[in-house]
């Protein structure tokens, strides 16, 4: 939809004239070796910047906007180097192209809080080259020395004569020039946009309903399909009676697909009624015995046995032998659904020689490859149009591209454009959850209350197995955040029992950190209590050699009034976690009613994500991540009985609402380190901060999420 159209392979050049006139700039990146099946680097023109004759600077972004502000932060990098007028900057979703592939992961994807980090150099360079060529064009037109020209707000200025030309007026001339071999990027001291609170480019469209999400995509003659999905993971439909379905007005077809049985109709409601009327006999298969209660029991038993060691410092067993005090605790977290506000969907228009796919996805190139594979078309004939994502949180990054695959399957069967839409029930019951985990953790203190031994055993399912993120089959996702336990303890063992369960699991905002931070940061609090020390001071002593950890911890404690008195029944808790190369500390103030109702009043958070691109964007991610983490801390839980997921919609899979949301204050450590992402790092510390605050308020320790005071010990 928004992709550059009609350009040929020839246009995969460093510079050319854009289709609509003007300057088009692309930076070929080093070719990546890991080629996904069916991908082709040059079936679309690859470019990051387009300058129109109307002075509109269009930044073409290969990343997906799922709410994190990428469609603002990334254009800021280009605009900064170009000295573009921010009011004239626009964003366009890139097509699939190797030039947009993630430099580490080798696919076109958005995730791992990595976009700001991975695009920092390439997008600034793209902007700097554009600027140099616009200057060269102006200097040529004026017949002056380019060194006597400067740029500001979308214009080139000849300093001696104060003559000015807009970028729009220069675009066509600039496009005829050869690109410079190398152009330096700005020194940070010259930044005028990066580092300043900058309004999002997409807010207006999200305040008047014009932002287009995947579910809003349309094609002429489009039909809508809902899929009757298996009641148990992996169940197969053995017999389908669609007599009643086919009598429903608007129903066009019933199509069995791998994912279940699709009901295709002229709209959502007819498809829904048609699906409700289907009679399907399912062979529930081996997963019909799954129950989360049994999984939990098995994990609890395994947690008492030695796992596969992932970190081994010193000799924990020996140190336990001489510890003055010891403590052992067991922690657990449930399966969680992502519950993006926009349920999954995908529109496919499949023709004989072309396939167009409109969806909100985090993994464009995998989806593209899957569609190429299924349709038998050439890679250049398959077009993925990235729409706005109504939330991602990892759910729209599918290693199997299942929500695209099923839509292509339906499209193949019915010869009309078709949009498959998931209902909320499909979403909540559809699997691909944050894994359930059970942890056993023990520590020993010496006679001075210093921890000398730490032994942490995790039992969980990994989310990376079989994906490009674990090419060697080594899935450390359940360990992340636990292996990096930052406190200075001489004898540490961290071990894992990796489990295979028939419940599909997936990366969920902050991945393994969402569970390990709860365990590590709650247990450090338990140790502080056992040592008779203040939990903030206790952490400080153990972080003497970790200045960036310490800085965020101190900042959160100071701004969160650590140590100041609170009303009776209230408590303050602190937690710290490093994930995705970003440091976050959070102080939560909570109260617990006599009936055991937990209320979060205030959260004060600090973050060190290196150089800050858009401070207001960082603040927004911190606020949002904390709320997201609070939903998991206080409410989220998927349970399964006899293979059937017990939750189905927002009434029984609850998330935080505005009347439960605390006030949130965010403080940032600004420094000159390489910029890092903030989409995920705010999530991990909030559950332990709240649990620790509950302990401070009540003396009761929370070791299980979601928090239920009846289960606190």
């Amino acid at each position: 939809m928004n992709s550059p159209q009609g350009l040929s392979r020839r246009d995969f050049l460093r510079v050319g004239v854009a289709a609509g006139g003007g300057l088009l700039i692309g930076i070929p990146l080093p070719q990546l070796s890991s080629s996904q099946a069916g991908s082709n680097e040059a079936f679309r023109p690859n470019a990051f910047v387009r300058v129109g004759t109307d002075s509109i600077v269009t930044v073409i972004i290969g990343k997906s906007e799922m709410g994190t502000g990428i469609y603002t932060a990334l254009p800021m990098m280009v605009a900064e180097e170009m000295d573009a007028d921010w009011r004239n900057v626009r964003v366009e979703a890139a097509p699939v192209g190797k030039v947009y592939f993630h430099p580490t992961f080798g696919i076109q994807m958005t995730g791992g809080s990595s976009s700001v980090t991975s695009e920092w150099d390439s997008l600034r360079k793209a902007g700097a080259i554009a600027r140099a060529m616009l200057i060269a064009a102006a200097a040529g037109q004026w017949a002056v020395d380019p060194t006597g020209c400067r740029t500001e707000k979308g214009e080139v200025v000849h300093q001696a004569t104060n003559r000015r030309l807009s970028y729009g007026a220069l675009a066509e001339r600039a496009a005829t020039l050869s690109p410079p071999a190398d152009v330096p990027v700005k020194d940070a001291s010259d930044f005028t946009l990066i580092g300043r609170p900058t309004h999002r480019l997409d807010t207006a469209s999200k305040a008047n309903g014009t932002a287009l999400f995947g579910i809003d995509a349309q094609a002429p003659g489009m039909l809508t399909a809902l899929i009757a999905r298996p009641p148990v993971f992996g169940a197969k439909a053995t017999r389908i009676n669609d007599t009643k379905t086919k009598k429903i007005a608007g129903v066009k077809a019933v199509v069995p697909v791998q994912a279940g049985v699709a009901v295709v109709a002229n709209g959502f409601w007819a498809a829904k009624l048609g699906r409700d009327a289907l009679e399907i006999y399912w062979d529930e298969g081996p997963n019909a015995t799954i129950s989360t209660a049994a999984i939990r029991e098995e994990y609890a038993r395994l947690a008492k046995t030695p796992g596969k060691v992932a970190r081994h410092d010193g000799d924990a067993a020996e140190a336990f032998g001489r510890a003055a005090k010891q403590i052992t605790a067991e922690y657990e977290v449930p399966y969680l659904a992502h519950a993006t506000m926009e349920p999954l969907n995908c529109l496919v228009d499949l023709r004989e020689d072309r396939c167009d796919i409109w969806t909100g996805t985090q993994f464009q190139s995998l989806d593209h490859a899957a569609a190429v594979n299924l349709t038998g078309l050439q890679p250049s004939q398959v077009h993925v149009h990235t729409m706005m994502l109504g939330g991602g949180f990892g759910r729209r990054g599918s290693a199997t591209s299942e929500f695209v695959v099923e839509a292509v399957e339906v499209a193949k069967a019915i010869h009309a454009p078709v949009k498959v839409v998931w209902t909320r029930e499909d979403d909540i019951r559809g699997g691909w959850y944050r894994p359930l985990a059970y942890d056993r953790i023990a520590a020993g203190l010496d006679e001075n209350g210093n921890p000398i031994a730490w032994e942490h055993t995790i039992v969980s399912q990994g989310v990376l197995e079989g994906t490009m993120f674990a090419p060697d089959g080594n899935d450390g996702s359940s360990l992340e955040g636990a292996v990096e336990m930052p406190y200075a303890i001489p004898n540490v063992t961290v071990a894992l029992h990796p489990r295979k369960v028939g419940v599909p699991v997936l990366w969920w905002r902050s991945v393994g950190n969402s569970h390990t931070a709860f365990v590590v940061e709650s247990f450090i609090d338990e140790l502080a209590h056992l040592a008779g020390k203040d939990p903030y001071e206790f952490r400080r002593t153990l972080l003497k050699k970790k200045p960036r950890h310490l800085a965020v911890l101190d900042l959160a404690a100071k701004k969160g009034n650590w140590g100041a008195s609170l009303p009776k029944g209230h408590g303050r808790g602190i937690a710290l976690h490093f994930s995705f190369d970003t440091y976050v500390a959070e102080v939560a103030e909570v109260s617990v009613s006599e009936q055991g109702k937990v209320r979060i009043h205030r959260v004060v958070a600090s973050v060190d994500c290196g150089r800050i691109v858009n401070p207001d964007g960082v603040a927004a991610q911190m606020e949002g991540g904390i709320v997201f983490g609070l939903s998991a801390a206080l409410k989220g839980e998927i349970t399964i009985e006899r293979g059937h997921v017990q939750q189905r919609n927002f009434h029984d899979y609850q998330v935080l609402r505005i009347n439960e949301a605390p006030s949130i204050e965010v403080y940032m450590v600004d420094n000159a380190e390489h910029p890092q992402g903030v989409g995920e790092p705010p999530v991990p510390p909030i559950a332990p901060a709240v649990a620790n605050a509950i302990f401070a308020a009540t003396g009761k320790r929370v070791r299980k999420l979601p928090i239920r005071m009846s289960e606190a010990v």
Partner: protein
Amino acid sequence: MIAFTVNRRQVRVEADSSTPLLWVLRENLGLTGTKYGCGMAQCGACTVHIDGEAVRSCVAPVSRAAGRHVTTIEGLSSDLSHPLQRAWIEIDVPQCGYCQSGQIMSAAVLLREKPNPTDDDIDQALAGNICRCGTYCRIRRAVHRAAELARGAK
């Protein structure tokens, strides 16, 4: 055939009277600013106004709109001039943005009834609107700001 007014425009739609208004708005009338989130009045993403009252269009049959005035996010203003839209932009409330049409439509009713709402008023009025990105703090700020703007503040 069901006739009603949407955003001051007379419409007649060919739809079964029990079809939820949401799908008529989105599919028959092309007004996709109103969103599907849950289908059971749990999340508020589908909030529109019928004769000025906030309604969850995912559970309201289109027959309920017959002969009435429906306002969707597209009809709140033609130019982003509604105080809530101005405040939303000033404070950069949305993240993914999917729930925001519903948030704004619920807030619009609140502001009409309580031009100077407290935090508690806002929490009560918007408790039916889920935001998974967690923009709640900004929603509170923006509703207060919209109240100021509506009073003519700069």
